[in-house]
């Protein structure tokens, strides 16, 4: 048997699992890009205030925006929207607030994760400013209202008349 002839084949064969291990990790950015492009998974896009001002206001149309909040794993928080719903014109920026209260007598850091339903609407729901863009630090027993400014792209499909924006508040550990 000619053993030496095995080497090139083996190099190729061992390369496959190594590449596929990398591919597993490559799926992470691929997945995020895919979700951002398609708006799947409720991931909402960001928009600068300047870009938002370029959008055409559509005063003939009203869309209902509902706000939902939840706290992950029964964390020590009170978390609710200042108003549960509002009627908005596409193309016009609006600001609303979310109220959060740290029930613990020590400093906690929170991170809120947004999700938009229905899926068809996620691509047209843009935020110019949001408390969810960064971590929010709360002193012991601190309560405050946090703003979010958003605009609906006027190209929102005709059949969508209600959009739900939900936030889940996570307690960040180790910070």
């Amino acid at each position: 048997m000619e053993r030496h002839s095995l080497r090139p084949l083996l190099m190729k064969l061992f390369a496959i699992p190594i590449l596929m291990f990398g591919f597993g990790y490559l799926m992470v950015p691929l997945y995020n890009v895919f979700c951002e492009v398609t708006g799947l998974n409720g991931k909402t896009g960001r928009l600068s205030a300047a870009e938002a001002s370029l959008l055409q206001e559509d005063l003939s149309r009203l869309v209902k925006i509902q706000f939902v909040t939840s706290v992950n794993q029964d964390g020590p928080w009170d978390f609710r929207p200042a108003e549960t719903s509002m009627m908005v014109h596409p193309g016009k920026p609006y600001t609303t607030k979310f109220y959060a209260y740290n029930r613990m007598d020590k400093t906690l850091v929170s991170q809120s994760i947004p999700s938009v339903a229905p899926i068809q609407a996620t691509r047209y729901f843009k935020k110019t400013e949001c408390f969810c863009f960064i971590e929010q630090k709360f002193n012991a027993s601190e309560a405050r209202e946090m703003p979010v400014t958003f605009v609906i792209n006027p190209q929102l499909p005709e059949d969508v008349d209600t959009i739900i924006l939900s936030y889940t508040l996570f307690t960040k550990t180790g910070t």
Partner: protein
Amino acid sequence: MTVPADLTHEDYGGHHGPRKGLLRWVTTTNHKDIGTLYLWFSLIMLFVGGAMAMIIRAELFQPGLQLVNPDFFNQMTTMHALVMIFGAVMPAFVGLANWMIPLMIGAPDMALPRLNNWSFWILPFAGTLLLSSLFVEGGAPAGGWTMYPPLVLQTGAAFPMLIFSVHLLGISSIMGSINIIATIMNLRAPGMGYMKMPLFVWTWFITAFLLIATMPVLAGAVTMLLTDKYFGTSFFNAAGGGDPVMFQHIFWFFGHPEVYILILPAFGIASQIIPTFARKPLFGYKSMVYATASIAVLSFIVWSHHMFTVGLPVGAELFFMVSTMLIAIPTGVKVFNWVATMWRGSMTFETPMLFAIGFIVLFTIGGFSGLMLAIAPADFQYQDSYFVVAHFHYVLVPGAVFSIMAASYYWLPKWTGHMYDEKLGKLHFWLSAIFVNLVFFPQHFLGLAGMPRRIPDYAVQFADFNMISSIGAMGFGLSQLLFAYIVIKTVRGGAKASDEVWEGAQGLEWTLSSPPPYHSFSVQPVIR
């Protein structure tokens, strides 16, 4: 030990046989020894995983909580799956590959004998690591074998043991697969082109590629779990910008090819056994090869049918529904070919044939319930119900496990040189075939009626079918003790088996003596 006529004593290079003593098994690089080790390992794991199944079914015998607490019950469902998949079925197939592929293609041994030794000896360590997690603080993993975060991250001290045992099992099967591919590509006897290889070799060739392509993805996914838990990464942690659903995508990108890893070698075994006992060549050899290859390719684009209910857009649901149903076509080709092989054959029904026919019939039932699950709108009802449990047990127990039993009876006389006890073998088949249906058929009804999977207790309207299922499970479990008895009895003695063993058997392995010499085909046979 008889020597093939074309070999003289000198051809063995002075190696007359195995080393003496226990060290033989530790240091062996002989494909027959390693195949034997794999098969014993998998038989032991079959009983370990089976004992866990007995605990599950005993608890489910009646509604209410009787024997174990719910957390231990969850540990049992998780460990039963891991032990059976990675400890019993996969090593059994690798063991069969080790024993049979060199004999079937006329090779003297596997291409990489030392690597072969490693790929086996990692297994007992991985298995021990996994099983010993039952005894650490917090108990064994209990979040299901699919290891979905964030639930799996709540596992206690067992968590890193789970991850590292999955790593080890993965490394073992990747090395085994590379060895199998290298053997098939390099060591075929002169004249044996790819399209002349026996189908067991073909199906393993394709399975090995699936393994080296997907096991590393699983290794990556569990490594991400590990770093999420201990090193502050946020792959699947929503608070840090990750996404738990992404784990399901990565896991099932591995997971779906994995289920074909568990069944393609079974297709190969059925394709070896049925022609032998029908005394006809396999019908549609080429279409069998192409069907196997297309099943393997399709397996990479269907994974999301495991997650129809996570909130996929309609377009994705449709794509994964249709691509999943597409797999029924090559699978149908295979079933058709097996039936066509038996058509007007001079059939006899020895134990391997009984198991092979049982495999075809019962695997097809599992295939059909798979098609039902593939219907995306209907899946919202079936998801995570006992219907799913019934489905995958039909393809894995009377599917994969029956094929391994069939292969064991078929080649046991070749391996040991002794005939097994035909009466006991047939008894074992009929007990297994009856009880396996008693266990799993009622589970279809339970699932359709709404009983969720992975629960230790259930509503009283499910009591009757659960009791039937539990009785079947005890019967099936006890029947397998008979299998172990038959195997041990055959190893220790019995009527002398002829070289050909079966009247209609075709293939190089039957040209060797029974048992074959320790080193066979040192001079490769030439295929005309």
